């Protein structure tokens, strides 16, 4: 069994150095604009920062993957093409893309740089993945978080490229790259602008008793009682009132994080080539803890030992974790 690549998030240069130190094989990051799906205020890299970060990563044997994983609206493709060209000049090791136009531009203009298909492309069938490989020379697909381990194993036998799966972090089961909930409420698009629940539209209100209500735009999307754990202010994790139910109801998903620590041996045996940790918006402390924990686990498995399972519950959304669809299709 070949050791899988541990692919880790970096929202800032300091986070990237932390990931490299903690044992990342590859770090993924983005520019400070709409070309990536974590276009959050104060986050991401300027060209100068990325140039220095790539140098540091390469000196330490770590690859840098550039996320250009949003969809350029018609007439605005120059921003995406410029990001691609800039990434090539700075020496990125691979692009993570979702849009076929961006993939085509890279395949034509930078054929020597690896192309990874983002989870935002939502390619989950062998036919779809093979099409991307054939048309654009995709070398790796990041699978949506809707497949069981056995389904991943079956796909691995049929496709001509590497497989990357999420192992920790945000647990989104929406058809990724197609979610328009934020756009519906705020006018900003997750897929075009790279921002889900823009912070400028988020408001928290704490009452006298310590209850916390979360609002996005004009909509209240949850209210946490004083002793209740909270989740991200995203519509898909919101709890809503409906005449059909007596209490607030998670209509789409719950605030919960993915944690596949205990499924790592199965994933590796299934032929997964890269293990991805979500969380470019998270802190250096998160990166250090999560990356070092999974580094130890992967190394232990490769050495034929029982992997140590670190307690990462404190870092999970709502302080709850799940193996989601990876373990069973009956989840939710």
């Amino acid at each position, binding site marked *: 069994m070949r050791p899988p690549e541990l692919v880790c998030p970096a929202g*800032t240069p*300091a986070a990237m150095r932390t990931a490299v130190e903690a044992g990342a094989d590859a770090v993924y990051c983005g520019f400070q604009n709409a070309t990536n799906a974590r276009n*959050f205020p104060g986050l991401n890299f300027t060209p100068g920062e990325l140039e220095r970060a790539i140098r540091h990563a390469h000196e330490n044997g770590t690859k840098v993957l550039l996320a250009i994983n949003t969809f350029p609206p018609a007439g605005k493709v120059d921003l995406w093409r410029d990001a691609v060209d800039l990434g090539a000049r700075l020496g990125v090791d691979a692009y993570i893309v979702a849009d076929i136009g961006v993939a085509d531009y890279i395949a034509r203009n930078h054929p020597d740089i690896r192309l990874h298909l983002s989870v935002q492309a939502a390619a989950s069938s062998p036919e779809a993945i093979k099409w991307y490989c054939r048309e654009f020379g995709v070398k790796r697909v990041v699978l949506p978080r809707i497949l069981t381990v056995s389904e991943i194993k079956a796909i691995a036998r049929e496709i001509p490229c590497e497989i990357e799966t999420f192992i920790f972090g945000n647990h989104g089961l929406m058809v990724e790259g197609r979610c328009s909930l934020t756009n519906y409420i705020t006018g900003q698009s997750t897929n075009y602008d790279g921002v889900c629940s823009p912070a400028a539209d988020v408001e928290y209100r704490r009452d006298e008793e310590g209850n916390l209500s979360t609002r996005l735009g004009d909509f209240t999307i949850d209210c946490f009682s004083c002793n209740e754990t909270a989740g991200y202010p995203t519509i898909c994790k919101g709890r809503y009132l409906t005449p059909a139910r007596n209490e607030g109801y998670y209509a789409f998903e719950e605030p919960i994080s993915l944690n596949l620590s205990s499924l790592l041996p199965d994933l590796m045996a299934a032929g997964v080539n890269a293990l991805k940790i979500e969380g470019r918006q998270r*802190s*250096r402390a998160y990166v250090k803890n999560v990356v070092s924990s999974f580094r130890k686990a992967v190394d232990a498995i490769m050495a034929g030992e029982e992997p140590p399972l670190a307690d990462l519950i404190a870092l999970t959304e709502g302080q709850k974790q799940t193996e989601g669809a990876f373990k069973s299709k009956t989840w939710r």
Partner: protein
Amino acid sequence: MEPVTPYPPTDDNARARTFLPAPPLPLFLLQPVLRRIVTRIASQNPDMFNRLGPHKSANFIIDVTSLPFVLHLRPDPEDLLFRAVARSRKPEADAEIRGGFLDLLGLVDGDADGDALFFSRDLTITGNTEAVVCLRNALDDVDGSIAQSVADMFGPPGRAMLSALRRASARKKS
């Protein structure tokens, strides 16, 4: 000069209190220390202000629940402000960040994750969420530990204090 009131009875961070000077404490004694701290951190990390974008001139209230006063921060490199204010005179601010002493220390020590503290309800933010997110990202992009830099300013006593607080924080987590 304004003597401050004793610690609020709702203090949720008793461990931290044992390391802090007993009240009442005249706030004017704190102001030059706070000014020195923010000036030093700003001069050591000039790039951090870029992450604040349009929120450099925002006013933040940092409400350490175990302290009898609040902290008022304006991270504008041209007009830096970091001062203690009596709770009864809390100024209007763009955003407020509220948490226990050890939790907030963990954030500036590079040891705690702000999202995790939010999930556990140990950290509350109100007001301009975007300004808080920018401040969080600016502080998190500082290599090393801001808490350590501050401790170093006060020599061996400062470092001993930080070590004691880190031990208290570790005990709290366990």
